């Protein structure tokens, strides 16, 4: 479908001559440019294509409930998937510039306040997977990154990710996406700062503090050729978009389908603005739940369309993807329980404040 896909699966056999390598890069760049042009053409004409498909090709009558649901789906599904592909590709390339080693060098020995701000921002662009949380934690702390600064990174990295942002943008508009990113960053900065103030270093497992992490060289320290960066971006698309597309489609089906079948204000009583306890409850329910951003979006979509308040729903989403039980269990290897509880408590409190704030402002 997209010409760029071919480049990712093209064989890169061993022992190619430099000359053919250059041709290979050139052809890959051409493919990416062609892909970008095709992307832009499709994306800017998507609305016309979608309504042509629904009303002309399928011959549905405008105005019927089924037709508008179908038109919504036929327009939204490719739109969100295309945005996701583009953003995941771009973020994949950006991430080749921010290895964890580099991020650590930037953060080591920083003063706390500025360190928290930087760490939260770097958490967004540094490649991270919660299964690497432990080696990353030790790698940071043992080379002089302050504990609170490390936490700012560990909070921001999972909570603010490209998938969450694209989905929020695609389904609820850029204001909600920006609010989510802005407040997510604020929580990461503030919670990390608080953890740093509390001086909780004694609750790091003893063996970690004795650990002298190799500051080791590793692959990716040298200059990375652009062909590798492009390759990395395409890999990210295959990996992430390949994994999340069913959830995205499910989210859009919920948005398109449920409409009209569940009473409009079904959720308003329990998750509306009126219920003051709904925000803390949503966070409490969200913490033990574990899902990626794509998995939780169908739920968010359904809750919002049925009258739940935006702040409550965003707080729920942040709690689900930002604070996960599996990650805390992994971190238990390096942190004693009081520190984990404090961490979850501080972040949870931050999320609750954000939930109330949104409900009050919007």
């Amino acid at each position, binding site marked *: 479908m997209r010409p760029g896909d071919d480049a990712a699966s093209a064989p890169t056999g061993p022992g190619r001559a430099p000359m053919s390598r250059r041709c290979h890069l050139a052809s890959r760049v051409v493919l990416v440019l062609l892909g970008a042009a095709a992307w832009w053409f499709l994306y800017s004409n998507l609305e016309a294509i979608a309504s042509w498909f629904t009303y002309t090709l399928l011959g549905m009558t405008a105005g019927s409930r089924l037709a508008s649901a179908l038109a919504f789906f036929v327009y939204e599904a490719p739109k969100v998937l295309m945005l996701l592909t583009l953003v995941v590709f771009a973020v994949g390339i950006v991430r080749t510039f921010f290895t964890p080693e580099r991020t650590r060098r930037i953060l080591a020995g920083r003063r706390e306040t500025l360190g928290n701000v930087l760490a939260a921002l770097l958490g967004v662009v540094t490649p991270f997977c919660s299964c690497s949380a432990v080696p*990353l934690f030790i*790698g940071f702390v043992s080379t002089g990154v302050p504990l609170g600064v490390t936490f700012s990174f560990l909070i921001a990295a999972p909570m603010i990710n490209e998938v969450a942002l694209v989905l929020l943008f695609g389904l609820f508009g850029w204001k909600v996406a920006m609010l989510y990113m802005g407040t997510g960053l604020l929580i990461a900065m503030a919670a990390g700062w608080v953890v740093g103030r509390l001086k909780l270093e004694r609750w790091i497992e003893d063996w970690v503090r004795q650990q002298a992490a190799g500051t080791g060289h*590793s692959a990716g320290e040298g200059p990375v050729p652009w062909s590798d960066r492009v390759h990395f971006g395409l890999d990210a698309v295959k990996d992430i978009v390949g994994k999340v597309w069913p959830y995205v489609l499910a989210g859009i089906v919920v948005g398109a389908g449920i409409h009209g079948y569940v009473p409009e204000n079904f959720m308003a009583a329990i998750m509306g603005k009126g219920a003051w306890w709904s925000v803390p409850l949503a966070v409490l329910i969200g913490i033990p739940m574990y899902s990626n951003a794509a998995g939780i979006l169908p739920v968010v979509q359904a809750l919002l369309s049925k009258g739940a308040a935006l702040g409550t729903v965003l707080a729920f989403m942040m709690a689900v993807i930002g604070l996960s039980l599996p990650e805390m269990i992994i971190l238990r290897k390096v942190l004693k329980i009081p520190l984990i509880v404090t961490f979850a408590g501080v972040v949870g409190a931050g999320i609750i404040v954000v939930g109330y704030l949104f409900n009050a402002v919007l």
Partner: protein
Amino acid sequence: MKIEILGTGCPKCRALADSVAKAVADLGLQAEVVKVTDIDAIVNRGVMLTPALVVDGEIVAVGRVPSAGDLRKMLGGKE
């Protein structure tokens, strides 16, 4: 030659182990393949993103599963 796979058992670590086993078989290499799952040992190498691939003591890939072609190059160039 000695091939080490550094990782605590995440899905990607298993994927890397599988593709390494396949590449070793395809290339007909005489290689000792070791899985390093101990966090101490991983961190001591300076690795912060798992899985990582170490060939004869040199870190050749971090935080990703190289494609079959790349993997053959990483392993093939060592013989």
